[in-house]
């Protein structure tokens, strides 16, 4: 993606706004491994990491393909470790399944920056920087709950279009359920798509068929949301509103335009990849974060999941992917 997407469009932190950290340090090799980019969010992760690395003159970026499953990722990580980079940023398919390899790297003296999906073992990473999947569900749940309460809907029909059934999706759904429960609401029907627009369309069309009247829908992923919106349009339905997930440019634009059922989206921002690379560089160079008092980069960073609505959409333009 690097060849076409200009660096400006990726969510990198422009070099030069916190002087101390951007000053060139010793040359470091940063290894990077993330699942194969097969949809927008993951594509943005790859693009952001690469672009952020390119913004530093003292960073050599070594990306290995994370493949399409944990096994492939373990194997390619193994070869990466054998090449002894200074630090490795890993977004595992599943933290638990790649834990052993990460541990091995740490033991071999290569620090691991754990991106997004956490390793169960605290010793397996130097830094965890992740989004908040549970929190994302909570944000969506609260938004929907509040809207419906305000409208005074007594027994709302709430649909959910989840992503691929992997642990992070389960976490999101649990957060969603918990937040709705505080309003006394439940999810009436839940379908899992595959983070792709065609699967989103497919599942949404069936969900709409199952629920002749709906009050609200949460769709976990804005990329698959393209298909979900298409299905809604094809079914000629508009009696409900929808909340998206992740925060893509298209979704933010649609929210701003306010001409679809999409009224909000809860973020799960791939900008974390840029931050991970920045922090990895500092760790490798043995430096701390300029704005913090500590001499070292902290051990864990969890991004907050924000809710983008028509009101605040313009401030998120930069972060949409």
């Amino acid at each position: 993606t690097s060849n076409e997407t200009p660096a400006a469009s990726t969510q990198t932190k422009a070099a030069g706004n916190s002087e101390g950290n951007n000053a060139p340090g010793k040359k470091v090799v940063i290894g990077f491994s993330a699942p194969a980019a097969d949809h927008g969010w993951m594509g943005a992760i790859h693009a952001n990491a690469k672009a952020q690395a390119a913004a530093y003159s003292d960073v050599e970026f070594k990306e290995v393909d994370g493949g399409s499953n944990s096994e492939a990722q373990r194997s390619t990580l193994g070869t990466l470790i054998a090449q002894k980079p200074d630090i490795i940023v890993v977004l595992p398919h599943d933290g638990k399944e790649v834990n052993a390899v990460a541990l091995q790297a740490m033991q071999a003296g290569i620090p691991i920056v754990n991106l997004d999906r956490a390793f169960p073992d605290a010793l397996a990473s130097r830094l965890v920087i992740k989004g908040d999947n549970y929190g994302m569900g909570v944000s969506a749940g609260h938004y929907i709950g509040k809207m419906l309460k305000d409208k005074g809907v007594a027994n709302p029909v709430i649909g959910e279009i989840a992503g691929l059934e992997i642990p992070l999706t389960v976490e999101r759904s649990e957060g969603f359920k918990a937040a709705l429960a505080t309003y006394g609401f439940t999810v009436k029907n839940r379908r899992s798509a595959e983070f792709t627009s065609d699967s989103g369309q497919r599942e949404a069309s069936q969900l709409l068929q199952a629920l002749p009247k709906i009050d609200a829908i949460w769709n976990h992923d804005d990329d698959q949301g393209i298909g979900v919106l298409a299905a809604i349009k094809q079914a000629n339905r508009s009696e409900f509103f929808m909340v998206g997930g992740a925060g893509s440019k298209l979704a933010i634009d649609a929210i701003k335009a306010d001409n679809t059922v999409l009224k909000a989206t809860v973020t799960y921002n791939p900008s974390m990849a840029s931050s991970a690379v920045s922090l990895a560089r500092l760790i490798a160079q043995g430096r701390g974060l300029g704005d913090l008092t500590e001499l070292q980069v902290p051990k864990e960073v969890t991004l907050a999941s924000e809710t983008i609505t028509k009101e605040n959409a313009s401030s998120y333009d930069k972060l949409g992917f």
Partner: protein
Amino acid sequence: MSDATPTPTATPERPQLPAQSPPVDPAETAVAGNKAGSGGKLSWWRGDGGDGAKRNLGLIGVLAALIVVGAITKPDLYGDPNWVWNNVLAILQLASVVGVVTVGMTFVIIGGGIDLSVGAIVALAGVWCTTVATQSYGAGGMIFAALAVGICVGLVNGVLISYGRLVPFIATLAMLVAARGLAASISNKQTQVSSSTFINDIAARKVIGIPILVYILGAVVLAGWVVLNRTTFGRRTIAVGGNPEAARLAGINVRRHTMLLYALSGLCCGIAAIMLTSQATSAQAAMANLYELDAIAAAIIGGTLLSGGRGTIVGSLLGVIIFATITNLFAINGLSIEAQNMVKGGIIVAAVLVQQFQFKSVTRLLARNRVTTAT
């Protein structure tokens, strides 16, 4: 059978000159009459796959059973005829894209091959036709691009298999991998939104209350049926798949035909790509994921022999519709994905068993009937 009467053909005076004498002589008409009589004799394999017809009856039984289950579990929804009609349309729409792919797949399998790359071809064609460059040519350009990509990739498959002598499984698996890779690289791993209203309307519009997608499915199925059952191309397909050596020795160009079968499958994928792009109003490299499995499964459930030489388009269509109905049933009942999967496995097994049971008992019944008539 028991024609004790000495057949007149044995005498040398009688002209058995098949080459030049197709005249209708009395003996001939006698035979024809005899044949008409044998129609009443209940030869159940008569006609274009009467065998297949029985099987399809079984499938329709399975379909009916699924609908009954739906009606029992959701009486409120099934009570509303309007909803039921909409649901039928929803099922058909859900089946439409895979259905088109399955028609091509059925040809390939009957012809003794297999095409694992269909999903990848749909994705590549979809991505190709939604690039900014292609979209600038408008809907016509997009449709042309999708079909051309489908046919070309299919042809490559065909050439590798028929002239490169690669095993179809391996050749199309390689194509699967390569085409998805190419699609990812073209799309930059992004979801490409289609801005052509013409394309997007294909999935959104209805004509006389029926979605255009369903018409497309119908047209492809009809064309597939005609080609398979009424044209020399179809006959060659069956011959090539049933016994390639016999087909070759009968003067059929087996290699060229095999190549064309994959091109046909590619063409179907191209059509499917347009339909799917229209449904999702977008395309991406990961779209049409595992369609190969869906299409093969539908064809086989529909009675197509995986080893080639036998299959029906109608069976394949029913197979696709059954799978779509199962999905729909789950959605309506709001089953969790894991329960859904467990039940689905059971339903598939049950469906095949029901279908086989139907089939066998009918046969036996007929056989018994026949014996009674004979004695």
